[in-house]
């Protein structure tokens, strides 16, 4: 074995306990979701189900309204990501490139907003949306989530924008491109990895958010996936682990898809070679 391979094997060995921590919940979810209800509570539990049983998923979508919850979550998460990017992109660009008075203070302010837990603001938010007549409105969550994750997005995008050499934009200006055109045709393509990471974080945060969704969306048909899952645990006389595990498994899928679809941007070092 070469030295490099040895080192790599050692790293894997060191990381394997973490791998167990990461994979164990998935294994449990998958194993339980594919079993019949009575098979879960057998005295001798096995990892592999007797036969692959998809009834839990059918039950979930047909009778428990989980499809609707997924759609609600998707709407809110995509909406929050788009709104937050729409504001954060120009804000981060301005902070990175323009001479803005009070830039340092503003950045600190953005950071300070991250220190406040959303939970403490929930009562206030509820009153605000009640005043605006937006209780039981998915858009209320779109705005609330985008507002909460926007500061982080601005912070993150600005750090990324700072790594894009200013020369590239200046070269575009000299070539005759307006500020907007140079932003669109030169700056933006180079920022895709940064934008991808930021969108991913915003999307995942919004997808997983529970307390605000629970408070503002009171109607069952408007519940988001995490809220729905929590409600599944609270059935009257029993805890239907098979259904809950099926739901949690399904809830991880959109995040996995979003991750997979933008991962190529995460590893692509686009700005390489443009300037020495």
């Amino acid at each position, binding site marked *: 074995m070469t030295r490099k391979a040895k080192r790599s094997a050692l790293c894997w060995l060191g990381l394997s306990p973490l791998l167990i921590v990461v994979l164990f919940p998935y294994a449990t979810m998958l194993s339980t979701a594919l079993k019949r209800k009575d098979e879960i509570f057998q005295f001798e539990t096995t990892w592999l189900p007797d036969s692959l049983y998809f009834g839990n998923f059918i039950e979930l979508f047909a009778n428990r309204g989980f499809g609707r919850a997924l759609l609600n979550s998707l709407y809110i998460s995509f909406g929050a990501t788009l709104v937050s990017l729409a504001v954060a992109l120009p804000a981060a660009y301005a902070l990175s490139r323009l001479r803005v008075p009070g830039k340092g203070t503003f950045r600190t302010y953005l950071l300070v907003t991250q220190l406040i837990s959303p939970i403490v603001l929930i009562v206030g938010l509820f009153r605000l949306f009640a005043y605006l007549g937006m209780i039981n409105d998915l858009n209320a969550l779109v705005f609330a989530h985008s507002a909460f994750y926007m500061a982080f997005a601005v912070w993150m995008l600005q750090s990324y924008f700072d790594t894009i050499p200013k020369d590239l934009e200046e070269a575009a200006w000299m070539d005759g491109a307006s500020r907007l055109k140079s932003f669109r045709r030169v700056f933006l393509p*180079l920022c895709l990895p940064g934008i991808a990471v930021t969108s991913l974080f915003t999307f995942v945060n919004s997808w997983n958010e529970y307390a605000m969704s629970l408070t503002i969306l009171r109607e069952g048909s408007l519940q988001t996936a995490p809220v729905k899952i929590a409600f599944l645990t609270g059935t009257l006389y029993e805890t239907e682990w098979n259904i809950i595990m099926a739901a949690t498994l399904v809830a991880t899928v959109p995040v996995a898809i979003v991750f997979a679809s933008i991962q190529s941007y995460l590893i692509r070092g686009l700005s390489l070679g*443009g300037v020495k």
Partner: protein
Amino acid sequence: MSSIAIRNLTKSYGSVQVLHGIDLDIADEEFVVLVGPSGCGKSTLLRMIAGLEDITAGDLHIDGTRMNDVSPQKRDLAMVFQSYALYPHMTVAENMAFSLSLRGKQKSAIEREVGDAARILHLEDYLDRLPKSLSGGQRQRVAMGRAIVRHPKAFLFDEPLSNLDAKLRTHMRAEIKQLHQSLGATSVYVTHDQIEAMTLADRIVVMNAGRVEQVGTPLELFDRPRTRFVAGFIGAPAMNFFEGKVELNEQGKPHTHIGPSPVALPEGMESQAGAIVTVGLRPQHIPVSAASTDGNARVELVEQTGCETNLLLKLAGIDFTVQTRDRLEVNAGDAVNLEFDSRNMHVFDSNSGQRLN
């Protein structure tokens, strides 16, 4: 192509003034090099011409039109950056075509222009490559290509060769010179390398601490530097300087002393009798000969460059550098004889640094 006129141009960042009233005229098709040490304001001046820096006061005219408040997009100047600033996500051809496509040129016209530029710069085989797969010299060429496809009013170069190794730099220098000769483009070129300045320029503008020290052809600057700064900056190895008091001998001829030995000063220095002056002598203008034991200077270091030999010497406690084409058999510690010819001397006021002869 066009002329550029700069009148009393100043630049301040808050209370810090970095350019103090620059006046400069650049004629049509002229190649002007701005040269000076780091922080002298040469790049700032170039960026002000480009429109990338605001003009605090003064006027900038291109082709007779005042350009102070015109955005860089509308000045129709092309700039080659020190970092090349190639668009990393575009191929070589797209990089060169970018400005033309912004102007809404037809595809066939763009292809022709890019093809022409690629041919001039020997880039035909690389048109489909991304910048990251090119060598430093090739990237440099693409940056030039991006500038020439546009046929702009003038070319601005911001230290374009400083990222290249010595051999490639010499090669690209010659290419830039040839390109200028064939295109006849008005060019403003910023560098801190005085060899680049001397070899490329029709006229050199020597800058120091935000001011223009002297404007002239390379040989004017070499032969008659107007200030001690220019004298020390232009020429390699750098000019030797020593200070002395101007005295008159019995015949009324001016001279000074290096240690105990009298050294004749150029004619006309009589008027400075009693004043402390700085005398400059180029290393090439001090004849040196090997001496037995009674030489007036002692060799500290011998540098062979093949064609020339540089001797670092000490004479009466003063350091001198002498360059000779003779193959002298001398080593460190040997004594040599130096001769000082007053006709080759540059005499400067020790206080103001202004030329006196």
